[in-house]
C-alpha cells in the first residue's frame, strides 16, 4: 500500500517536472530565440489599428453669439486600406486600384516592398478614404487588400484657433491623446477609456450592476463648449495676419475678452498652422505664445501704474508735476518718447501723451513697497487659464533696491509679462478694479446628458472702482482727442485705449534702439465694457510706434464688434459722418 502511494507521488512529480520543463522551453523560445521579433512587433504596433475598436473622442465646440454650437474639433469617419502580403496575388494591380481612390498612399516602390514582406499579414497603406471611395474599393474584392472602418480627428476650421484648440497625437504611449491646447488640458474629459459598444450587455449587468446605475465614466467623459465666437475669431485672425504681413513682424497676437467675466471670445497668434495637415508643421508653432511667452509691453503698463497710484491715494487726477523731458535715476537716463519737456501738467497728460517721465514720477510717489505690492498682485501668479504650460511673469527687477527699476517698470520696460496676464490686469481697470479668471471653456456636456457649467467666479479686487474709473476716463480722452489726431472718435460710443511701444532686449543684455515691440489695449463701452482687446506685434519693420501699426486694426475690431453684437450707443448724438 505504502509502495503504491510512493509510486503515485513519483508519477505526479514527474508530470509536474515535465510541465515545468515545457514552460521553460517555451519561455526560452519566446524570450531568447524570438525575443527580437516580438520587440519589433511591439514597436510596429503604433502603426496598426488598435484591436479595442475605433478611435473615439469627445468634441470641442465654438459658441456663436446666438448660442449655436459649431464644431471646433470632431471626428471624421471613413476607411483605411491595409494589405496582407501573404494573400496578395498581384501587387501591381492592387497598387493601381488603391491609388485610384486614395489621395495619400505609399509610393509605388514602398508599396511593392511592403507587398514583398511575406512574413507579415497586416500593413496599412492608405488612410482617410471617404465612405464612397472605401466602399468602391471594397467592392472590387482584390485579394490581399483589406478596407477597414476608421475614425480620425477632424478640425472643421482648419487653422481657426489652432493654437488654442490644440492637437491630438501619439505621445509617450501607443494611444492617441491631446498634446497641446484644450485637447491636452481637457484630455480626461475628451478621451474615451474604452469602446462600450463592444461590451456584452448581460455580462456587464451581472458583473457590475453598480456601473450600469451610476457610471463614473459618464460623469467624467463628454464634450467641451468654449467661449470662442467663430466669426470674431476669424476676424481677429484675419486682422492679425494682415498686420504681421504688412510690417514683416516676427510674430503677432491678439485677445478679445469679456472684461467682467474673463470669458475669452477670440485668441490668436500669428504665424499659425492647419490642424488637418500636421505633417510639415514647425513644432515651435504648436504651443500657445499668448499664455507661454513673456514680453516687455511698454506703455500699456502706464494705466496700471496710474490706477495703482490713484488707488493708493498718493495722487489724484488733478495732481500736477513738472515734466522736464528727461530725468536721471541711479545714473540711468529716462526720457519721453520725443525727448521734449512739457512743463507743469496734470496726471491725465501722462496717459494722453504717453510720458515716460510722468510714469516714473508716479512710481516714485507710490514708493517701492506699494509698487511691488500692486504689481505682484497683478502679475505675481499665473492667471489659471485653462490652457497648458502657462508662463510666469518676470518681475525680478521689482526685488531690487534701485529706483530706476521701478521707474522703468512703470512704463512697461524691465518686467516681462504674458499677454494673457496683461489683458487680465488691464481688464481690472476696465471692470472697476476686479481681477477675473480668464477662461476658454464655459461648460462640459457630459455623456450622461448633463451639461456642467464651469465656475470661473474666483475674483480678487485690486483697485477701487473710483481709481479704475478715473484711469478709464483718461484712456477714453486719449481715443477721443489723440488717437489718429481725434479722428478715431466714435460719437455714439465711448472707447478707452492705450498704445505701447517697447524697445526689444538684446540677447546679451541692454536694448536695441531700432527694434520694437508694439502693443495696443482698449475696451468699450468705456464705463460698462463688454469687450477688452489686446493686440501686439513683435519687431515690425520700418515703423516705430504702435499707433502706426495697430490703431487701424484696433478700430476695425471695435467697429466690427459694435455692429456684430449690436452694442447699443452709450453717449452722444445718433448720427455721424465719417471723414
Amino acid at each position, binding site marked *: 500500500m505504502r509502495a503504491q502511494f510512493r509510486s503515485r507521488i513519483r508519477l505526479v512529480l514527474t508530470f509536474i517536472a515535465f510541465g515545468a520543463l515545457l514552460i521553460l522551453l517555451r519561455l526560452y523560445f519566446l524570450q531568447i530565440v524570438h525575443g527580437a521579433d516580438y520587440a519589433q512587433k511591439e514597436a510596429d504596433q503604433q502603426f496598426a489599428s488598435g484591436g479595442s475598436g475605433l478611435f473615439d473622442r469627445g468634441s470641442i465646440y465654438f459658441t456663436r453669439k446666438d448660442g449655436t454650437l459649431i464644431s471646433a474639433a470632431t471626428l471624421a*469617419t471613413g476607411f483605411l486600406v491595409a494589405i496582407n502580403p501573404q494573400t496578395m496575388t498581384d501587387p501591381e494591380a492592387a497598387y493601381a486600384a488603391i491609388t485610384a481612390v486614395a489621395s495619400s498612399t505609399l509610393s509605388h516602390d514602398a508599396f511593392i516592398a511592403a507587398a514583398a514582406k511575406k512574413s507579415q499579414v497586416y500593413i496599412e497603406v492608405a488612410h482617410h478614404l471617404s465612405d464612397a471611395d472605401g466602399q468602391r474599393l471594397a467592392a472590387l474584392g482584390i485579394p490581399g487588400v483589406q478596407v477597414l472602418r476608421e475614425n480620425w480627428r477632424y478640425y472643421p476650421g482648419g487653422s481657426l484657433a489652432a493654437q488654442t484648440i490644440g492637437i491630438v497625437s501619439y505621445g509617450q504611449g501607443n494611444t492617441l491623446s491631446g498634446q497641446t491646447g484644450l485637447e491636452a488640458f481637457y484630455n480626461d474629459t475628451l478621451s474615451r477609456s474604452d469602446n462600450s459598444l463592444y461590451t456584452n450587455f448581460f455580462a456587464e449587468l451581472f458583473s457590475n450592476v453598480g456601473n450600469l446605475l451610476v457610471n463614473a465614466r459618464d460623469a467624467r467623459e463628454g464634450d467641451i463648449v468654449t467661449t470662442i465666437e467663430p*466669426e470674431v475669431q476669424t476676424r481677429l485672425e*484675419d486682422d492679425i495676419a494682415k498686420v504681421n504681413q504688412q510690417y514683416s513682424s516676427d510674430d503677432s497676437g491678439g485677445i478679445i475678452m*469679456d472684461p467682467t467675466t474673463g470669458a475669452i471670445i477670440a485668441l490668436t497668434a500669428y504665424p499659425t498652422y492647419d490642424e488637418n495637415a500636421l505633417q510639415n508643421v514647425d513644432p515651435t508653432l504648436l504651443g500657445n505664445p499668448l499664455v507661454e511667452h513673456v514680453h516687455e509691453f511698454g506703455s500699456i503698463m502706464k494705466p496700471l501704474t496710474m490706477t495703482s497710484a490713484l488707488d493708493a491715494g498718493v495722487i489724484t487726477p488733478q495732481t500736477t508735476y513738472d515734466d522736464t523731458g528727461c530725468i536721471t535715476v541711479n545714473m540711468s537716463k529716462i526720457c519721453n518718447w520725443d525727448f521734449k519737456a512739457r512743463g507743469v501738467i496734470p496726471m491725465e497728460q501722462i496717459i494722453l501723451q504717453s510720458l515716460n517721465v510722468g510714469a516714473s514720477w508716479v512710481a516714485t510717489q507710490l514708493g517701492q513697497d506699494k509698487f511691488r505690492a500692486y504689481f505682484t498682485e497683478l502679475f505675481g501668479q499665473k492667471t489659471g487659464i485653462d490652457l497648458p504650460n502657462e508662463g510666469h511673469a518676470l518681475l525680478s527687477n521689482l526685488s531690487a533696491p534701485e529706483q530706476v527699476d521701478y521707474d522703468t517698470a512703470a512704463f512697461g520696460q524691465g518686467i516681462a509679462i504674458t499677454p494673457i496676464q496683461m489683458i487680465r490686469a488691464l481688464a481690472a481697470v476696465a471692470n472697476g478694479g476686479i481681477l477675473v479668471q480668464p477662461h476658454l471653456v464655459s461648460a462640459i456636456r457630459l455623456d450622461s446628458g448633463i451639461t456642467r457649467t464651469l465656475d470661473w467666479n474666483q475674483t480678487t479686487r485690486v483697485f477701487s472702482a473710483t481709481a479704475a474709473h478715473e484711469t478709464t476716463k483718461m484712456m477714453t480722452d486719449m481715443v477721443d482727442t489723440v488717437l489718429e489726431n481725434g479722428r478715431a472718435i466714435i460719437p455714439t460710443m465711448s472707447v478707452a485705449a492705450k498704445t505701447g511701444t517697447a524697445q526689444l532686449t538684446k540677447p546679451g543684455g541692454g536694448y536695441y534702439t531700432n527694434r520694437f515691440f508694439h502693443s495696443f489695449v482698449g475696451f468699450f463701452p468705456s464705463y460698462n465694457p463688454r469687450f477688452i482687446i489686446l493686440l501686439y506685434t513683435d519687431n515690425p519693420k520700418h515703423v516705430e510706434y504702435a499707433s502706426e501699426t495697430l490703431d487701424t486694426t484696433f478700430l476695425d475690431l471695435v467697429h466690427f464688434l459694435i455692429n456684430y453684437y449690436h452694442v447699443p450707443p452709450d453717449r452722444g448724438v*445718433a448720427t455721424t*459722418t465719417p471723414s
Partner: protein
Amino acid sequence: MRNFHLPLLSICAGTVGVLLVVYIGLIAVVMSYAALTVEFSQSVKNDEAAVAVLETQYLASVESITNTNYLAEGYAIPIAQIFVPARSVTALR
C-alpha cells in the same frame, strides 16, 4: 390517496433543455443588440461627420466674407452711419 411519482431525471432533463433554449436566446439577443448598437453608433458618427462637413463650409464662407475687400468689389464707404439703440441678441449678456 393517490401516490404521485416525480420522475426526477425527466424534470432535470426538461429544466436543462429550457435553460439551454433560454441561453441560446440570450446569446441571440446580445448579438442582435451589439450589432444594432454598432450600426446605430456608426450611423450617428456618419451624421456627425456630415455635419462637420457643413460646418467646414460655414467656417470657410465666414472666412471668405471676412477676407472680402468690399472697396475692391466696387462698394463705397457709407456717407453716414446711424446708430440706434437695439436689443442685444448675443449669448454673452
